[in-house]
């Protein structure tokens, strides 16, 4: 096909509402990456252009906007979205409109387990490995715990992630007692009651998959009242809160990053492109990149990779949309972590990085140490299987799953 004047990308992200703590950094990352790509001459010589949609504007506006971008602006690819709810909405829409859609950040594992899609791909992992990795890490570092409590936000992610975690725990370590399942309201300003109850119970482990302001509030209130002293905290999404929490997050907390990314990634931190990204980002926004920014980078990496591959397959000619879609099968690409692969169910296969917090004089906030990067395949449900059912079939030898250990090199 003819090379177009530009490669148009539509991106849905949160510009308003609580989830904008992810949305806005991701947006900055996208703008930065687009500039860099265009500075390099574009993708296969075609510059990219971005069109953003605010997921916070409501799902009707979003679908209308989505349609407009595809039908009228004629975008070549959509990156949608952060919210799992929105992913559920746009996945069938993308299929209808026959537009390539990268689910660039949403985590729900169910989407590909319940439905087959031709045009929808996920350029990162899903909730299953993102929760199992911190659990493995916990079982490896604190194998002797007896009691667990959970404090999650009362919405889909909070419930689903607890479902994965607790199912795995019951399968792998049935003697553990779940002493409290607390689901405070999304955006709750106060966790006094939860903290008191947890102090009274003093569970060995406290899990929270909360994020954003909710996680910050919970951590601060818990820390102020000394809850960290007696319980091991597991916070699978805390990588995105580290810089904000500063010294309010104690040492020794297990944190995850929803994938294999971190601004001090042990395998990548020395690389030029990595440094260009993290430091460029910091210059641009004043903060280190968090996982949503890395997820955005992965979507861009996948886009570049798939156009390279499709162009090659097309004998050096610019591919049409159908050819690009075909090239997605088994696509391999690399963001700012380990290489990724698209599986036959369109799910991305991504390693997972977990570690514990330590202080580091070089940074005014906690950094992750004793990192372990888990390979993806062993900790995610195979294509075509339902995660929860698959977790129930796990055998104790699963506990032996190990990744590569890295200690923070000072």
């Amino acid at each position, binding site marked *: 096909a003819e090379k177009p004047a530009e490669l148009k990308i539509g991106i849905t992200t949160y*510009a*308003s*509402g*609580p989830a*904008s*703590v992810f*949305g*806005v950094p991701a947006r900055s990352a996208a703008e930065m990456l687009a500039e860099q790509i265009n500075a390099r001459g574009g993708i296969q010589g075609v510059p990219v252009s971005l069109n953003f949609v605010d997921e916070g504007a409501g799902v009707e506006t979003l679908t209308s906007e989505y349609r407009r971008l595809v039908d009228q602006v004629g975008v070549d690819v959509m990156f949608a979205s952060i919210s799992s709810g929105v992913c559920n909405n746009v996945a069938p829409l993308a299929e209808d409109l026959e537009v390539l859609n990268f689910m660039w950040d949403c985590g729900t594992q169910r989407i590909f387990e319940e439905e087959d899609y031709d045009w929808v791909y996920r350029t990162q992992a899903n909730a299953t490995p993102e929760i199992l990795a911190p659990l493995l890490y916990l079982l490896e570092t604190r194998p002797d715990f007896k009691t667990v409590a959970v404090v999650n936000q*009362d919405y889909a992610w909070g419930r689903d992630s607890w479902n994965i975690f607790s199912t795995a725990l019951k399968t792998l370590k049935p003697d553990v007692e779940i002493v*409290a*399942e*607390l*689901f*405070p*309201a*999304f*955006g*709750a*300003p*106060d966790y*006094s*009651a*939860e903290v*008191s*109850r947890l*102090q*009274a119970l003093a569970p060995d482990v406290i899990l929270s998959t909360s994020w*954003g*302001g*909710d996680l*910050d*509030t919970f951590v*601060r*209130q818990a820390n*102020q*009242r*000394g809850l960290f002293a007696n319980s091991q905290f597991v916070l699978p999404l805390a990588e995105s809160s580290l810089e*904000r929490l500063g010294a*309010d997050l104690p040492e020794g907390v297990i944190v995850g990053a929803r994938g294999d990314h971190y601004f001090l990634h042990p395998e990548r931190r020395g690389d030029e492109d990595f440094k260009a990204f993290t430091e460029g980002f910091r210059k641009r926004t004043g*903060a280190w990149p968090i996982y949503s920014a890395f997820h955005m980078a992965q979507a861009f990496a996948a886009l570049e990779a798939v156009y390279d591959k499709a162009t090659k397959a097309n004998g050096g000619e610019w591919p049409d949309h159908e050819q690009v879609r075909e090239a997605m099968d088994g696509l391999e690409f690399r963001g700012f972590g380990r290489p990724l692969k698209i599986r036959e169910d369109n799910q991305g296969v991504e390693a997972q990085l977990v570690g514990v917090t330590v202080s580091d004089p070089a940074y005014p906030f906690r950094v992750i140490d004793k990192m372990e990067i888990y390979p993806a395949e062993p900790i995610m449900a195979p294509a075509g299987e339902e995660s929860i059912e698959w977790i129930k079939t796990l055998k104790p030898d699963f506990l032996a799953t190990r990744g590569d250990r890295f200690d923070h090199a000072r």
Partner: protein
Amino acid sequence: MTLNLAFIALLDGLSYASLIFLVAVGLTLIFGVLGVLNVAHGSLYALGAYTAATFGGQLVAAGWSPWLTYPALVAAALCVGLVVGGLMERLLLRRIYDKDPVLQLLVTFAVFMMLENVQRMIWGVQPYYMASPLQLLGNVSVFGINYTAYQTIVLPVLALAALLGLRFFLRRTDAGAQIMAVTEDREAATAIGIDATRVYFVTFVVGAILAALGGALATPTTSVVPGMGANMIVLSFAVAASAGLGQIEGAALSALIIGMARSFAVYLAPEFEVLMPYLIMVVILLFRPYGLFGTVQARKI
């Protein structure tokens, strides 16, 4: 649940109730006097929080004594209440007092949306936080459970002070009597020399200051984030409606009930925690259709 735990739950409920009371009482006041259900009340809460975090943060960063963050909280609330509340009343609400109340609701909703946006333009999307007031006072220990003195002592005391202050103001002072008169009949009040326009202004600003103060007082314990106003406003609605309209004491009682219900739910039925305000509202209204303290003012026939 043992007695100890019940006591602990009581303490937790108290601090939470104090916070929502401070916000909801402003809403109730404005509603009672102006008849406007101010959706933007949530934004004033959020703006109070952001401003307090900024003021406090600057103070601490500039190396001033962290004790000064307390006056900074109050200063922030006053600023927001006077400036934003004042402008809102002067520029918008004043034009529509004689219009259908639903229209007033709509205007405040529009203001809410705009302020959410403005807030994001000024402060961005990253959560803010200002812990100095909390850390200064440290913890107290009750039955082996650590409590922050700020939440268990400062907040309830301030809420109580607000309650008593408002009661005194409305019942005992001339200004309070004027407010009550305007509340009932604006024209008749004007006919005896009351400047109803000013009363509306003052009431709105006081209500706005209370909302902002609620937000400012929340900053030491909670993250200031986009969308925090939207969450608070429904809760305030629930408190105001279960209290009975314009009922200051009612607002205190229903805030307390909702706060307690929430903290007891955390112990007894965590599943219901989120639902508690609504369940309580349903139950209260089913048994007392005009709210806890509300009375039917029978129409004269």
